[in-house]
């Protein structure tokens, strides 16, 4: 009676109500089956122990659901390895605020997922611990840096997974794996317990099988936290289930100059399909030029490298992590960092120190900061006239493993459509809306004004159900 793909949490709740025993047996078998594949998929690096009898989830809103944790989010006793050999043996002594809040709602975190080292990458190939592949085709990348989390959700290992999104690291792998990827407004979700990469861009996001699930997770973990001075409550998310919102009369900005952007034909064609579909739902389309988005990648590269270089300074091997050999503190810290950090991390540290150093700070870092402000203003202007922005999540579908590994610029281009919302701190969702001729998932990215996650998800959910997906599917 419950055959087919792994259910969404919304559907599982109904099935559980209908016949709890039958659902439990089936879920057990489905999970066994899914996990039999997990070795080949490489999404999970560590399984976490089941909660003890005393810690059996209470009747929380998310009770009975397994979830996975990106390896850069702390949970007491769990490996928070960040995909890095440097932290291979590190166990966090405390829970991230999101972990604590979700556990209180009944979630069991059953697994830790693979990721690009410290979140630096777009294919998860810069992972030094576990190498996830795309569940749709093992020759393809699952995207990154939350590739393990996206693949774990797509493959049915867990109901949802937490990821982190600094420049697209939740949305882009969601797109590659055909799942929903939700990135909140910067400040909506506490970063306490998220290992910092580029602090002014980092957000914790959700990978889920439908918008309603992503929303449920977001509203559970959102809100101000005394342990993160940049977290905010206002305006609060109302804590009820999502109701879909009609697209009728919604002013939807769409990119008018997408052809100029070296985008795959299939992506371009799919965007046209999506636009037609939105129009048929009653949306008013408003073509806008996206010329500023081109600067986005450069601005992002500078800011992100600078903050990363500083954030990663703490990894000196003194209190934890890999300590190298050497006759002085400096020698052993250099040896430990050289052996512990992979090539992309070292590249960004060097770049970050360069753009912050004496003669270059004004030329790069401060200019990038100014550019970020201009881009944010652009969005403010855009949302003065439009309710939402709809465009592709990435310029291509999932790409073959190995093809961009030696070409950092090509790798970064994967994030060209996701980086702008990160720079502006806007909430965005990547929604699977179709497939390319080869059958690979393609998505639509919706970007909403600051703090409008509720509307973003309500519109995304109604688009999802108009496509015959989401909560009502199966």
């Amino acid at each position, binding site marked *: 009676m419950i055959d087919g793909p792994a259910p969404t949490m919304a559907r599982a709740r109904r099935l559980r109500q209908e016949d709890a025993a039958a659902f439990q047996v089936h879920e057990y078998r489905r999970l066994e089956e899914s996990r039999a594949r997990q070795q080949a998929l490489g999404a999970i690096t560590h399984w976490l122990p089941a909660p003890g009898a005393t810690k059996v989830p209470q009747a929380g809103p998310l009770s009975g659901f397994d979830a996975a944790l990106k390896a850069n*989010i702390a949970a007491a006793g769990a490996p928070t390895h960040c995909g890095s050999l440097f932290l291979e043996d590190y166990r966090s*002594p405390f829970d991230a605020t999101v972990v604590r809040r979700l556990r209180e709602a009944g979630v069991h975190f059953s697994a830790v997922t693979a990721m690009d080292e410290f979140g630096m990458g777009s294919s998860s190939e810069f992972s030094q611990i576990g190498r996830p592949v795309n569940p749709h085709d093992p020759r393809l990348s699952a995207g990154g840096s939350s590739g393990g989390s996206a693949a774990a959700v797509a493959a049915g290992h867990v109901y949802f997974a937490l990821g982190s999104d600094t420049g697209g690291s939740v949305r882009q792998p969601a797109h590659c794996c055909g799942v929903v990827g939700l990135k909140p407004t910067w400040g909506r979700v506490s970063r306490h317990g998220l290992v910092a990469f580029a602090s002014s861009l980092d957000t914790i996001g959700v990978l889920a099988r439908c918008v309603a699930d992503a929303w449920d997770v977001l509203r559970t973990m959102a809100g101000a936290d005394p*342990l993160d001075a940049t977290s905010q409550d206002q305006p609060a998310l109302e804590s009820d289930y999502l109701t879909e919102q009609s697209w009728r009369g919604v002013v939807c900005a769409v990119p008018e100059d997408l052809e100029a952007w070296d985008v795959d034909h299939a992506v371009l064609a799919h965007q046209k399909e999506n636009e037609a579909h939105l129009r048929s739902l009653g949306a008013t389309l408003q073509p806008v030029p996206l010329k500023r988005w081109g600067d986005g990648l450069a601005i992002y590269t500078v800011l992100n490298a600078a903050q990363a270089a500083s954030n990663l300074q703490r990894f000196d091997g003194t*209190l934890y992590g890999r300590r190298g050999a050497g*006759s002085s503190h400096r020698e052993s810290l250099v040896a430990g960092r050289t052996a512990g950090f992979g090539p992309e991390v070292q590249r960004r540290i060097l770049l970050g120190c360069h753009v912050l150093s004496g003669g270059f700070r004004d030329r790069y870092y401060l200019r990038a900061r100014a550019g970020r402000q201009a881009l944010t203003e652009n969005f403010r202007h855009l949302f003065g006239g439009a309710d939402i922005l709809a465009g592709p999540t990435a310029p291509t579908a999932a790409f073959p493993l190995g093809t961009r590994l030696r070409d950092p610029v090509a790798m970064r281009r994967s994030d060209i459509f996701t980086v702008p919302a990160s720079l502006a701190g806007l909430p965005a969702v990547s929604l699977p809306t179709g497939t390319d001729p080869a059958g690979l998932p393609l998505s639509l990215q919706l970007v909403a004004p600051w703090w409008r996650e509720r509307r973003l998800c309500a519109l995304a959910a109604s688009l999802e159900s108009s496509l015959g997906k989401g909560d009502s599917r199966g």
Partner: protein
Amino acid sequence: MAETAGFTVGLEIHVRLNTPHKIFCYCPNRADGAPNTHTCPVCLGLPGTLPVLNPEVKEPALRLALALGCTIARVSEFSRKNYFYPDLPRNYQITQQRWPLATGGQLEEVGLERIHLEEDAGRSRHQDGGWNLVDLNRAGTPLAEIVTLPQLRDGAGARRVLARLRQLVRYLGISDGDMEKGSLRCDANVGLGPGHSQAGPWVEVKNLNSLRFVQKAVDQEIQRLGKALACGQPLRRQTRGWDPRTGQTYAQRLKEELADYLYFPEPDLPPLVISAAAIEAVRRNQPELPGARQARYEESWGLSRDDAATLCRTPQLADYFDTTVQELRTRGFREADGAAEAARWILSRVLAAVDGKDESLKVIPLQPSGLAALLAARLDGRRTRQQILTIWEPAMRGEDPVSLVEREVPPGPSREQIQTLAQQILARDAHLVARFQAGNPALLNHFLGNVMQATKGRAEPRTVKEILLELLAGFSP
């Protein structure tokens, strides 16, 4: 020395604020205790932790800035200063760089550039065999850094400024100002010309932890640089340390080798916003500062400048003095009289007993009300200075001053008894009275001495004198 005339000195002074907790977490703000016991994931800089500004630091910082006449920034910003050091757990220090909490202001003869907030590092101790032991109890304790303009001329000036600041932070109650414990630390910059001729100082001497060391180090550097200039040697920008054992500065590193700190705004902390109301609230509750207090003692109570300055050296001493005067006032004595008497006894006897440890004034057995009881007996003529001295030691040991005054000292003669004695003596020496009345005022002392002798020294000389003058005026042999 002509060649040293152009040298200017600026100070960078770190004050550890005595808030209950650290600046970015809620660990106790205590540098002591067993190593690494006052730590948590935040001040250990564990992955995933974030600094959150502890609001406790705002008030003491504002107190200091207001007391120094600074302009307080309504919005200031934290930055990261990046450098690798074993006692800096994140390998960056959170400090205020571009937008400090306060600018301007004045401390004695020197103008201030700025005051900013920052976190302290831990402490490392070098061990034999190349090992380092690191104690992170101090990591994350709150510091206010005061940067002066390079307007000082010599070590004495530097010492004066630092001493004044130490006195000020104690009055404000924001730090114990203890240099030995590192609550107050000083770096001295020595350079040439006003503003260090744009190029910055030639020498920075780090970590001077006593007033004496600051003075010596500054004078030494001025001499060293002056000699080098006179001999035509090129000066090299450098950081120097101070070795308290040899009493000498020594070269640490040349400026060219100095790290670039890669400053950038701290993204984990929102800007620090100070409202006008917050500034006003602090201003209203600001305690009386040492300068104002000293002026009050001099101008209203007529104390000498030296006495007033000594009494104001610490808030504990000034409070002890002030309370004694108030106690005497409630017993009906004029403030100026009470102040003169209290100052005399406190500056000699009480200070000798506390031996420089003014904080012990709060706990010594003879508290201001007891002292006032002793001094009142002296002021109203019931007891002589000599009589008070005989009961001073037991009073200092904690015996009740009131009963000491009443019981253990035989009371002096009454006015009537003195009058009778004086009349007898004047009658006996009538020939001398005639000479006194003929214009020999020095004879008053002769009569005074005789009466005092007759009372066995127990009469109050002032009273005796009064009575004698009265009698002499109306005496006819």
